[in-house]
């Protein structure tokens, strides 16, 4: 049972990591990264490392994607302000 869970979590992590590498748009990549963080957190939890799982969940799923999204917002506004203005309306 436990081996199956580990295998499943490992497969999910590998799949999301591959998708994260293949995604070109940084905003979408941040969302995929968040899913990857969740997969890693589950993997750490089934491997009996709850402390690492908690860190991974907080940093990998919440903090890193948030910082990436904020950076993308700043940079994309810099590059194409007109597009962004329309979005706000």
């Amino acid at each position: 049972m436990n081996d199956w869970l580990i295998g499943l979590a490992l497969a999910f992590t590998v799949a999301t990591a591959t998708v994260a590498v293949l995604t070109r748009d940084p905003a979408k990549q941040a969302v995929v990264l968040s899913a990857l963080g969740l997969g890693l957190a589950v993997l750490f939890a089934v491997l009996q490392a709850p402390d690492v799982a908690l860190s991974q969940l907080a940093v990998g799923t919440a903090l890193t994607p948030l910082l990436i999204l904020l950076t993308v917002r700043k940079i994309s506004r810099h590059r194409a302000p007109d597009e962004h203005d329309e979005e706000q309306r």
Partner: protein
Amino acid sequence: MTARARLLLLLAAAAVIAAFFAAACTELPPFGTASHPYGERAVAAALAHRTANVVSSVNFDIRAFDTLGEESMLFGTVLGATLLLRRARDERHHRAEAGRVLPTTRLFGSLLLPVTLVVGVYIVAHGQLSPGGGFQGGVVLATALHLAYVAADHRALRRLRPLTVLDVTDCAAAASFTLVGLATLAAGGAFLQNMLPLGTFNRITSGGTVPLLNAAVGVEVATGLIVLIAHFLDQAVELTDPEEHRKERQ
């Protein structure tokens, strides 16, 4: 360097690493065995210092000096980001407008904000007893505060987050880790040696210096990350570049 040369360099380096990695892996114990030589010694050391969470015992007792380095690294990161993301002379500050939020989002955020804050404090406070600790709880606290931004707007978040106080608290918490180490030196022990009374096993006061260092890291991580996100948010929401003013004026 051409693309072909770069690819060849990558393949050569990858082949060397793959060969040595594969050779090293053959010496590893098999996956998921019952024998954990390092784990058994760490558990014995943690129990000797009456710390229920072995990971916290490793982080804040056995390898406390290691954690000092990690904590300083985070402090340096926050400091560097603050320096880079400060308001430049040619950047304009716009007050963020009050945002419209769906009533369900507002309800969700205002219900969840106090709950997540309590969970964060719990994870920090019970770091020496159960999974979690200063770092994990600190990140939960820092992200929990930003539910105010999700549920309301940037102005509500600003009122919840006195940046000057948080800056000073961050520095004080980062320094207090070293101060605990200096105190153990002054008391005649080694740097960061666990010299305080160890207390009763599985009580919140157990573990000697572990809860102290754990709390210092918790406060440092929480305040440091709030400051870090604040600078990122300011850049994304409130500060604009000179080029944008020109476009706005036209």
